[in-house]
């Protein structure tokens, strides 16, 4: 056979004899394919026992999670994770309840600045619809004196928290998307830009909006 191989390859590279070490001669099997020979080495023990190990591990895994049901299912894992979070951070839903009696409009520069940040943050979509200066784009102008859903602090907070999903404004909830503290600052900021008269203001929809008579802190209403 090897003669034929030599002939067969004669128009290419010469077909060299395979390199076989002395300690392998006994292992050389008595067949060859196109000059390829095979040794009859044992499978490496680490490989074979590694294979057995993965099989044992797999049987154990199936027993633990599926057959005996000792391990949690992914739904149970989720329940556990949520329960742990509730324990650590308190019930987020309860925190969302807002105590309006303790809330008042903030006027300090730091709070207003934070409110402005929240307004423009890309996580929240205030600026997307109401414009970066609150002048109104898709959503109404927030700087004029005409309001559809109330212009006092409490109304504003409720509007932001619950949104108007049917009219296109998402609910920003509380605690998770905009925390309670930020909510007050955001509403205070929005109150602070009232009357700022930005460029390209959107005209109010007079069929639904009413004029606002709320006092803005720090401003004299008579002016």
């Amino acid at each position: 056979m090897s003669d034929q191989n030599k002939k067969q390859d004669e128009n290419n590279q010469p077909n060299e004899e395979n390199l076989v070490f002395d300690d392998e001669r006994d292992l050389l099997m008595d067949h060859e394919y196109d000059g390829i020979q095979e040794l009859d080495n044992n499978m490496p023990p680490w490989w074979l026992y590694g294979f057995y190990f993965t099989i044992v591990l797999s049987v154990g895994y199936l027993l633990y999670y599926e057959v005996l049901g000792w391990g949690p299912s992914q739904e149970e894992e989720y329940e556990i994770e949520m329960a742990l979070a509730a324990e650590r951070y308190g019930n987020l839903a309860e925190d969302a309840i807002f105590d309006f009696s303790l809330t008042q409009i903030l006027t300090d520069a730091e709070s207003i600045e934070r409110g402005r940040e929240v307004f423009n943050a890309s996580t929240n979509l205030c600026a997307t619809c109401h414009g970066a200066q609150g002048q109104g784009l898709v959503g109404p102008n927030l700087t004029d004196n005409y309001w559809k859903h109330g212009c006092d602090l409490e109304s504003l907070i409720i509007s932001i928290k619950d949104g108007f999903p049917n009219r296109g404004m998402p609910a920003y909830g509380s605690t998770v998307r905009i925390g309670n503290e930020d909510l007050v600052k955001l509403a205070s900021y929005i109150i602070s830009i009232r009357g700022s008269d930005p460029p390209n203001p959107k005209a109010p929809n007079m069929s639904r909006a009413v004029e606002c008579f709320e006092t803005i802190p720090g401003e004299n209403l008579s002016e």
Partner: protein
Amino acid sequence: MATETIYYDNKIVRNFAIATAIWGIIGMLVGLIIAIKLFAPNFLGFIPELSYGRLRPLHTNAVVFAFAGNAIFLGIYYSLQRLCKSRMWSDTLSKLNFWGWQAIIVSAVFTLPLGYTQSKEYAELEWPIAIAIAVVWVIFGLNMMMTIYNRRVKHMYVAIWFYIATFITVAILHIVNNLVLPVDMLKSYSAFAGVQDALVQWWYGHNAVAFFLTTPFLGIMYYFIPKAANRPIFSYRLSIVHFWALIFIYIWAGPHHLLYTALPGWAQSLGVVFSVMLIAPSWGGMINGLFTLRGAWDRVRQDPVLKFMVVGVTAYGMATFEGPMMSFKSVNAITHYTDYVISHVHTAALGWNGGLTFAMLYFIVPRIFGTKIYSLKMANFHFWAATMGMVIYVIPIYWGSVIQSLMWKEFTAEGTLMYPNFMETVTHLIPMYIARTIGGGLYITGVIVGSFNLFMTMKSGRLIADEKAEVPELVRQSAERKESTFHRWLESKPTLFTILTTVAVLIGGIVEYVPTVLVSSNIPTIESVQPYTPLELEGRDIYIAEGCLGCHSQMIRPFRSETERYGEYSKAGEFVYDRPFLWGSKRTGPDLHRVGGKYPDSWHYMHFMDPSSTSPGSIMPAYPWFATQNTRVESIPAKIRTLQRLGVPYADGFDQQAIDHYREQAEAIAQGLADSGFEVSWDSKMVAMIAYMQRLGTDISANADRADVVPLRTSAGASNEPSTAEAVSY
């Protein structure tokens, strides 16, 4: 022993060699383009046919089926003739195989950018092309099997075992996963829905990797390593054990692509354990390859063939260890949906498939042209460019993806998400995307230099189109010599061998699939889940055509970090009308399963027209053509009828009302957009897409009393009628 003279067909080998190199360059260049688009989204402008979502499947199909596919044929047509001591059975079938395959690839190059896609990963091509693939694959298989039957060597070498497994399994996978009902020539709906479709797809997807990118290349390794090193194979016994273990175990591991999804838990667990058991059988191949090189390592330094082989086999070893690790649920929770998977894939594709392919090319081309490699220097440059290119590609992405995943999961001390804005986690990845592009660019440079080198090698020699060989006369063995072992005997029985291979690869798929369909508790019914309205269906088909699932998943996993970010985790019962399923596998952008109702229509309009207007820094491309292109409304009735035939319970005759229903729902949305100052026509793609976006994931919410529900079949015998006994209320 009497001999006869035969001639090996080298012309077909040369043709596949040229096709491999050309498609390799094209497929990788498309990859480079989409890599650039990830950090420069307006690269090449916003042309529908060149958008990321449409080019990504072209890249994957081109490198898998065009580059690696032609390489497989190259390796098999070269080695099989010599292992069987027989010319390919039919020159006509060889030519049909070659030209048929190239025609399929060309059709993919046209249809995918035009948006004709089934959207199932690596099975995107629409049904007429899928049928053509099946036909050409059977032509290849017939030619191969007949050559094996006409062999002049009694036993089949291990490489041939792997070739047989490749042919059989790819045929089964391809046919089952492409069971669809056509709407027209270029659109179809999957015969499977939701969870079942996901299971079938990843049974296919995972085993396409196994039986298209692994087994044929193992066969190639078994031929070319001993030939190039002039060394006997390390262990015949190991070959037997790892071959059968590999093909039997591989087929079960598909569900590891669906961990923590709505796939039933038991199927996920099977996916985990069979992935873990796959380490040793995979490594069996690596060991047999590397240990064969004993005493030949000095030649590895000089011979580009062996260099590429060694790097390829090592990359194979790394990828097949990493894969099982990624299949542990706790690891998967971090790596899944991130670019980690992309790095994992490229270690295998660039290292293993690319390495073996070029090793093979450097081996075959000089031999069939009766010459030497044109430039050893260039070959060495190619080797280093490939190796370093791969390293520079994968490491930054491995690194960046893990960090991104941890950012998704990070909470503040108050228990809120640290990075509630998805964009923040993307921005961090951009330098990694740039580094990856540099690595990929280096790899392609190597491929271009290597292809030039091979071209010059071809020019410097002359093709030995029909290579003369003296072989033993063809004798039909009738008198059986007693074989030493059963397996040795089996190696001389191709039919039985093929049957046993088929049985081995069928078991896993059947055990996982059949209960998922038949046992109803696997997919608890949710009564409020309704079929899509015609408009939403059209939007969904646009989502499919644009390849949105290349970047967006629709599967929220049951983790607090995901339910805080996206909303309630996804339930199996929500997907019963999803044909095909669109769970996706990567989150370059956020999950979209609960995007419905989250933003106003006008937000979606602005976002599609210019994503950075609503999400500053977004790397999503703009889709301005949504506003200008219209949908084919007239095709709606045919779609409805096709879905009815698949069991979706639209009321009888609804196909005739579908266009009116479509128009009514669309005009309301268009009117709303007009009120916001955005004029689009009711039959624009924009309106359909917005309707689909707003529908996503909303069916399970308590007030699911939507205005636009479709009329349903009411007869008690309806197959998809939700049974109240099983109904789960949310």
